């Protein structure tokens, strides 16, 4: 088990290296660098000035070396100008050539400086990840139990009325992307002029103008049901349908298995057949799907955070990409890669525990 985990971790690191290199390559393409030079120095720079600026800031050296620097495996560049002033990758934030460390990369915890927010990338990332963490937590807390219950309820009696009603709901919800359901939810519940809020307000049933708030900005300071319900619901709806469909498929299959008949003909009551015999076997397949939802949530939050103006990871990613913020983009990609890989590791290990057939002897 330990060996397995270690090997998986090794593979994970390799994957992370490869993926970040790809992102590094893409973000460091010549047009991007030119844009960077113009936004950092002056928009009206001539081509020669751009080259000069890039050369001065260490962007003209080979890609692999720069990647190594960013990683922290290669010493940061230093450069002595004609006037004797030493500049370098690690010489900033009030450090001088003497006090600055030789290496300053991701490995040293130096993720660079965001050009948009004028803040260290680590600071931005930790703040936005914290915000997104809360969002994800509430999405999962809503999505997983709801979808499993829906899936099990509709799968335990295939073709029944309950099954058809729940399946229709699941299909409808999973067929509605977040940018559609989000807008619908805002119009329906979070608008002061449309939907049910004006009616409720005129009856005096709600205090404010709207039932729920259409923006989640205030949730950055304090999460309340009022400001957080809509973004959570928007993301969860899509996932609920998806996981419920998976659970249902798995459940209907399990219900036709012979061991379920065995249990039934042993005199086990229907409820117990479901709880004791079917459930565990039926949850093996959806477990993998649920773990796959984590990386997918990272994508889902991009749309929803932008829609609800919630300054989490997705919002940050959009800002970084939109403003050619290379360091921040790289940081985001590292985080994304690790989230994906770690959830997959957890998924594989959890699978072994759910399914005794592949457990170590």
């Amino acid at each position: 088990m330990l060996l397995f985990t270690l090997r998986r971790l090794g593979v994970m690191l390799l994957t992370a290296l490869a993926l970040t290199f790809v992102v590094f390559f893409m973000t460091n393409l010549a047009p991007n660098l030119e844009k960077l030079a113009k936004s950092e120095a002056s928009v009206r720079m001539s081509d020669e000035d751009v080259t000069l600026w890039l050369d001065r800031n260490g962007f003209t050296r080979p890609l692999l070396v720069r990647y190594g620097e960013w990683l922290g495996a290669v010493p940061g560049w230093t450069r002595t100008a004609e006037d004797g002033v030493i500049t370098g990758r690690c010489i900033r934030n009030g450090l001088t050539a003497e006090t600055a460390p030789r290496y300053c990369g991701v490995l040293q915890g130096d993720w660079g400086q965001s050009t948009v927010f004028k803040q260290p990338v680590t600071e931005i990332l930790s703040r936005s990840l914290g915000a997104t963490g809360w969002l994800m937590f509430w999405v999962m807390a809503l999505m997983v139990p709801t979808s499993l219950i829906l899936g099990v309820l509709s799968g335990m009696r295939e073709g029944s009325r309950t099954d058809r009603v729940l399946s229709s709901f699941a299909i409808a919800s999973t067929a509605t992307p977040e940018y559609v359901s989000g807008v619908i939810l805002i119009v329906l519940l979070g608008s002061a002029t449309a939907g049910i809020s004006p009616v409720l307000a005129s009856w005096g049933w709600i205090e404010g103008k709207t039932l729920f708030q259409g923006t989640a900005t205030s949730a950055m300071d304090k999460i309340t049901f009022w400001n957080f319900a809509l973004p959570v619901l928007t993301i969860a709806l899509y996932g609920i349908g998806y996981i419920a469909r998976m659970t249902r498929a798995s459940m209907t299959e399990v219900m036709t298995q012979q061991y379920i008949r065995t249990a039934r003909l042993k005199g086990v009551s229907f409820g117990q057949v479901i709880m004791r015999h079917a459930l565990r076997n039926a949850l093996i397949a959806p477990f993998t799907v649920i773990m796959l939802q984590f990386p997918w949530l990272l994508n889902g939050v991009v749309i929803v955070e932008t829609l609800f103006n919630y300054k989490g990871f997705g919002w940050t990613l959009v800002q970084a990409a939109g403003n050619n913020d290379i360091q921040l983009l790289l940081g985001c990609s590292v985080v994304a890669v690790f989230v994906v890989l770690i959830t997959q590791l957890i998924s594989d290990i959890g699978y072994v525990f759910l399914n005794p057939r592949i457990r170590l002897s």
Partner: protein
Amino acid sequence: MSDTTWDPSKPILEIENLSISFFTRLREIPAVMDFSCTVMPGEAMGLVGESGCGKSTVALAVMRDLGKNGRIVAGSIRFKGRDLTTMTEEELRHIRGSEIAMIYQEPMASLNPAMKVGEQLAEVPMIHQGMSRAEAWALARQIVADVRLPDPDRIINAYPHQLSGGQQQRIVIAMALMAKPALLILDEPTTALDVTVEAGIVDLVKDLGTKYGTSMLFISHNLGLVLDVCDRLCVMYSGEAVETGDVRQVFDKMRHPYTQALFRSIPLPGADKNSSPLIAIPGNFPLPHERPKGCNFGPRCDYFQDGRCNAGDVPMSVVPGDDRHASRCVKWAEIDWAAPPKAGKTTTKLEPGRLVLKMDDLKKYYAVSTGAFGGGLKKVVKANETLSFEARENETLAIVGESGCGKSTFAKVLMGLETATSGQIMLFDENVQNTPIQSRHPGTVSKLQMVFQNPFDTLNPSMNVGRQIIRALEIFQKGSSDADRSEMMLKLLDMVKLPRAFAERMPRQLSGGQKQRVGIARAFAGGAKVVVADEPVSALDVSVQAAVTDLLMDIQRENRTTLLFISHDLSIVRYLSDRVMVMYLGHVVELGSTDQVFSPPYHPYTEALLSAVPIADTRVKKRRIVLEGDIPSAMNPPPGCPFQTRCRWKSQVPGGLCEKEVPPVQVLAGGHQIKCHLSADVLAKMEPVITIAAE
């Protein structure tokens, strides 16, 4: 929950005029019609019939578990005097598992893979007797010991996949016995198991029946097994009971043409492919919605009389003088039952020709890794060890052994799907042991062909039959034009006795026997000289088996083919093979002519194997030799003789030689080879396992 008003001298189960139908959107499909039977306390009732005859449906109806589409449309099922057909779901729940328990065909599928064995066992008394968890586990442990499983403490804490097939079936039996039911329904309980394991299970079931006085409803297609286990018998055909009565009376004095035809189509000791060939039942089983008017068996019956047999429904009529013996035949009193069967065509035995295939010291090892996440220890599985034999033209060589003995690996190596680890395979004069099938010459490939076990999976479902055969012809580079090849294809269909119109059919429109015929036609498309038939009839019904076997024999006779017949069914092997090779754990333990292998001296394993095969003949007396335990894993074979862990003759060999050395091959009179340490005089003293009482 048992009903105190029930009188133990009354039948425990009474099924009267039961009719069951399945309802589809299209139509109502009657599955069982007018079925009656009675099971007395302590009695074992056998339900026999081919697949689709409705025997399992009857069992499920007793359990009232017919699914959404199945419904009991008429009749009653009374259990201890109470009608099961009118019971509520809650009442049924109390009866299921506590009063009536069921044992299923596939033990692996009927155990919950994610629950420990003990937990699944303990559940029964916890539900029905409200037993505490600890008590229930203690009882589970005791019952596990009762079904003769070794190390019950380990077993109850194991998951089903950690047990072997035989052990799993014992667990299923244990589960059925947890509440000491009054009636046990066994639905083909041993079909998925090896013969020696089957023999152990059958012994156990019989003993438990006597010990607990449980009545049994035993469903099987194997007549020999029913003779072994049951007191009474009910033969079913196409949804109806056609004959019922005491087992021995039905076996010796059958009074229904179907029963008679069934017995004539199974190879019993004494049947011989040349002098008294099997008689297949002509025609096919009628589909449930295409049953003929009157007697269902009418169109296939030798005694059919137009206007009488198809006039109207045939009722059961009692055969006087016997014990509750009845037959569903209008003519049973007129038929001369003692008349010998119309002599089939007899043939003369063909002499084996030149040497076609020679294997010399063939070895096939696999390296496997253990451990759930890959890695782990690398182990070597010795699938075939020092395999040497010869096969001649015209000869049928049977390869016999239980699962895991290496017979399929041998076939794969021969076909070129795997390459040998060492040794030689000579096909005619060509050395093929290291040539995988992709690099073999089409001529070689067409000379060496295979008929597969499962005809349902080996035909491409989206290609019509003619096209599949033409495809084989193309690959074998036969025929010069498309027209030429399609003519050849039609000839092949003639050869396997299928109508030419079948060329246009899709595989799903064919029955199992017909599919297997297509498989045979495909194998012989290139004029195969050596055909490996891997259990070619074991997936087919008995009546079809005879027809397919005879077809193979006919084609062999015409083409002078060498047939390597891989099988676990010793009855059929005895019937059709000239020489027999018995394998155990990758070793050839015995090799000789059919007579040599089936009569003493035996290899100890062959002896046990012969004893384990149930024979549907009341005249046959068998010595029972039940092997203890399971076949050892090929990954971890015992040291010395592979069979020493289960051998009952081990004590006859001095000095514990069996545990130390792999025995040498002893060559006895007539080229009979036995791989055993037993001395020649001990071997000579062996007694025959099967004796046929004089008539």
